[in-house]
């Protein structure tokens, strides 16, 4: 053995003491995984939008206009066929991204809230149908499908909460029917499912039941339903300016008994790593804008790794301690939403 690798046996024994690690709590691990996947879906949407910022500010408007025109012309004289062909694409197909992009575009061009709700519920239905089709082909659907469906439904419920009472009741009634139909669809899918499809189908059914519970709650007590979403929106606006409203797994202002919507936030264990340690010291726990020392975990190759950097707002988890608006909700809706963190991820050239 080379001299560099020589280790005093007594020291080796002390280091050995650190090796045994108790088994990881499977529930905590599963929750963390779900949160990461939800965060990944949000990051993907945000990354798509950030491509719009590749042009210098001065030329931004002109370039956006040009790019938009090119895309529109392309869609009108040729791309339309691709988009049409993509409508039957499955997540395993190369045209699936076109399908998702066309859905997003359709939503972006729909201003009427009721039409938006209809579109969102159609998208949730499409995700459910995709899962059933994949299952019938013996392929286990990806968890991202469940997450997308949940985001669509939650956005629809949130929009419903902003309608006047008559319209809200009608819309919630329709949403309930659609959710029941989707749950039914998922239940029927089980009969021909592959063995490894069961957990994800079960997870989706749980999610649908949770959302159905929320919609029915709105029909039973419209005021509480509206207040729940209003408080949630206010919290988001006051706590995370500029944050997207991407819901977290199980993010609904109504209590749920399903494990899929566990109200226990990860940060409830130890908030010290969530970027809020500094907030507590200066008594400003709301906006999380206190600069906190952090490390550069990007590659700079200049030996400066680990230099403390100012971290405005921390790491996207800065709101994990926020009390929930109502029982059963994790209270912030931003766990899965990446926040701008110049220091948190380094940002060095």
């Amino acid at each position, binding site marked *: 053995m080379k001299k560099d690798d020589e280790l005093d046996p007594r020291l080796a024994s002390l*280091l050995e003491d650190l090796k045994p690690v108790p088994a990881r709590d499977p529930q905590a691990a599963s929750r963390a995984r779900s949160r990461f996947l939800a965060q990944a879906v949000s990051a993907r949407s945000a990354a798509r939008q950030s491509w719009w910022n590749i042009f210098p500010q001065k030329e931004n408007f002109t370039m956006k206009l040009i790019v938009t025109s090119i895309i529109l012309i392309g869609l009108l004289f040729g791309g339309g066929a691709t988009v049409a062909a993509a409508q039957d694409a499955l997540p395993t197909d190369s045209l699936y991204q076109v399908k998702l992009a066309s859905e997003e575009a359709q939503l972006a061009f729909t201003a009427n809230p009721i039409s938006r709700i209809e579109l969102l519920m159609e998208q949730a239905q499409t995700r459910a149908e995709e899962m059933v089709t994949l299952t019938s082909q013996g392929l286990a659907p990806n968890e991202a499908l469940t997450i997308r469906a949940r985001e669509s439904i939650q956005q629809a419920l949130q929009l419903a909460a902003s309608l006047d009472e008559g319209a809200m009741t009608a819309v919630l009634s329709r949403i309930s029917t659609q959710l029941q139909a989707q749950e039914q669809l998922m239940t029927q899918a089980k009969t021909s499912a592959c063995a490894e499809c069961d957990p994800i189908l079960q997870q989706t059914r749980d999610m649908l039941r949770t959302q159905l519970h929320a919609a029915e709650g709105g029909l039973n007590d419209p005021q509480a339903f509206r207040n729940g979403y209003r408080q949630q929106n206010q919290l988001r606006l006051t706590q995370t300016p500029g944050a997207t409203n991407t819901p977290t797994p199980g993010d609904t202002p109504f209590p749920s008994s399903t494990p899929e919507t566990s109200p226990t936030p990860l940060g409830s264990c130890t908030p010290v*790593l969530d970027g809020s340690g500094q907030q507590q010291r200066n008594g400003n726990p709301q906006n999380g804008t206190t600069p906190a020392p952090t490390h550069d975990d990007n590659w700079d190759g200049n030996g400066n790794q*680990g230099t403390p950097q100012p971290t405005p707002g921390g790491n996207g988890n800065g709101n994990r301690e926020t009390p929930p608006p109502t029982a059963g909700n994790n209270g912030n809706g931003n766990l899965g939403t990446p926040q701008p963190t110049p220091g948190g*991820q380094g940002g060095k050239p």
Partner: protein
Amino acid sequence: MTLEQDLLQSAHSFDPQALAEIYDLYSPRLYRYAMRLLGDACTAEDCVAETFSRFLKALQAHKGPRDYLQAYLFRTAHNIVADHYRRQPPTEELSESLRLDENTEESASQHLRQSHMRAAMRELTEDQQQVIALKYLEGWENDEIARALRKPLGAVKSLQHRALARLKQLLLDEA
């Protein structure tokens, strides 16, 4: 192309399947690493979550690793552990898990040895800590550690040598 590079390439385009695979592949290892250094399950879970959160943010900013994903993730996790200790110096309270076993003499004794070892590790520089943790706790080779630290092999060996000398001084000489 290796599996790691393959996954990383897909991760840059936010392929959910690839991101899930990356999580499943590295999350248990990162958890073990964080647990060994932090000694607390909840904090270790937070560390893993924050590591992957920073990874996603780096991808979003069109940065992040182009190769050596494992090295990148462990470096990030180590930085988070270091930040944690900087913000909140450790207290020597017995953990909940230990309280359940406190009638077991061996368990308490092991906990004390672990606390002592962790305290000694914290006396090292951050690079030295990382070299010792990756080499002797995770069993990495020097060239892998060099990639994680983005330092030449010689520098890693030097860090290791100094770290071992310091640990000996702290743990063995004082005994």
